[in-house]
């Protein structure tokens, strides 16, 4: 690993600062309370697919493990359950096993926003207004051009995951929601399926065939209702096949992930146990599970929707940069 200083990135960094200002001013004006959260925590929410950074607190003979938080979610949901109302954090997040690249970094900035008495599609409207606000602040108009693609923030292009699979990957709804048929279809397409799960192939086809088409029709794209296997901490829809979750894209770049938050603590606990088992099975760092988080859910989390946005990616779009690394005056690179 190496430290680099990049004075040539100053012009992009200045846009990054403008986006930051715009986020704070918009959210403040719209009644969201800014919450400062810790980045070190003694317990985390178990998530099977991401690796964490572990460190240690020491005081004479006392030693206690601490973990760098992969998102501010555990703190924000606790404080939400205590009645602070709509809120957000713009904070550093840490994910191990993520080499720095044009869209990734093991240390990045996350914008996480929660809105009470709302579902995922309600929050989408505030998000669109935020994007329009940023665009107006920076370009004095409702649209921008990124990598030759015009993106107009006056409306969403909305598409369900099921429609997207039909349109871009020729996978019909019956195949998408049936494990066996889906794997058969994937194999026919030439993907390696032996030894892999539905989730593996779904992700692979999604990234290979769907993602490159999103956010390229003149508007930002909101792709929603993921198969229940991808529910994570989201509520299920009435059909029980899909989860109330969306992701949004600009010019093929994924920027954020939104859920109608699961408030059923029993369901949440079951998912925690499952995720923890998977962590153990895949040799991930085992950390204490945040049990009080479950209690917070049990006693007070109202219906709400939450979204997590990769802040550098968002700023990259407004800066017209080719990589999130170009926004930084100081970068750490992995030379491997």
């Amino acid at each position, binding site marked *: 690993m190496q430290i680099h200083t990049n*004075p040539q990135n*100053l012009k992009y960094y200045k846009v990054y600062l403008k986006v930051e200002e715009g986020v704070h001013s918009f959210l403040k004006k719209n009644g969201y309370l800014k919450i400062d959260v810790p980045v070190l925590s003694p317990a985390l929410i178990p998530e099977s697919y991401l690796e964490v950074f572990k460190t240690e607190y020491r005081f004479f003979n006392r030693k206690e493990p601490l973990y760098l938080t992969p998102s501010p979610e555990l703190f924000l949901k606790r404080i939400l359950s205590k009645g602070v109302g709509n809120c957000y954090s713009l904070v550093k997040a840490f994910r191990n096993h993520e080499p720095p690249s044009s869209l990734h970094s093991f240390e990045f900035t996350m914008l996480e926003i929660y809105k009470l008495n709302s579902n995922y599609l309600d929050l989408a409207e505030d998000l669109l207004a935020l994007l329009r606000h940023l665009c107006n602040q920076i370009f004095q108009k409702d649209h921008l051009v990124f990598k030759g693609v015009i993106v107009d923030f006056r409306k969403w292009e909305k598409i369900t995951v099921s429609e997207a699979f039909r349109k871009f990957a020729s996978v019909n709804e019956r195949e998408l929601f049936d494990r066996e048929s889906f794997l058969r279809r994937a194999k026919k397409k030439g993907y390696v399926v032996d030894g892999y799960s539905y989730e593996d*192939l779904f992700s692979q086809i999604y990234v290979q065939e769907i993602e490159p088409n999103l956010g390229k029709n003149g508007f930002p794209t909101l792709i929603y209702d993921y198969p229940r296997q991808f529910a994570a901490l989201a509520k299920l829809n009435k059909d029980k096949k899909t989860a109330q979750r969306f992701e949004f894209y600009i010019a093929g770049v994924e920027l954020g992930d939104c859920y109608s938050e699961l408030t059923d603590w029993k369901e949440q606990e079951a998912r925690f146990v499952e995720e923890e088992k998977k962590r153990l099975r895949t040799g991930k760092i085992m950390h204490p599970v945040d049990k009080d988080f479950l209690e917070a859910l049990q006693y007070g989390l109202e219906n709400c929707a939450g979204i997590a946005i990769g802040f550098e990616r968002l700023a990259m779009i407004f800066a017209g940069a080719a990589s999130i690394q170009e926004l930084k005056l100081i970068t750490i690179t992995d030379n491997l």
Partner: protein
Amino acid sequence: MRTNAGNLKKGEFIFYQGEVWQIQKADFYSPGKGSALMKTRVKNVKSAKNVDITYKSNESVETVDVESVEMQYLYKDTENIYFMDSRNYNQYSLPLNIVGTVADYLKEGQRYFVYLHDEQPISMRPPMSVRLKVISTEEAVKGDTVSGAKKPAQVETGVTVMVPLFVKAGEIITINPETGQYGERVKE
């Protein structure tokens, strides 16, 4: 040879649909669920066509055995770039669309590495940096040096690069031939 897609690195060669491709970009990517992925952009060594392939990071990929041979760069024309293997005086050519803009920074008579597969040239290894003499550039004007102000300079291979204001005609500079970025001033 086979390897896990997660190990793929820029510059390596793989077989895909029976043809040889060179990795231009390989990004590890961990989506919300399911296997981690390796997003690659590969270039066909014959047609120079670029294709994006997403692999599961532990998916087995067939890599291509290549030999890297140091050769002398002879010249280029509008379509090809020519090298000579000084061990046996064999001449080889590579299409310019395979070599890309790196060719703009190569100096005739210098030695570079060419990749052979089944004794056929398929690509070249761009040097980390090339040393080239500045032929012409304007005298420095005062500028905002904090933001890294730059000016254009023509170097001996004919191409123009952006250099810091203090660089003068006649000086030797290093350039990354893959990005065209200025590195530093060096002594002859």
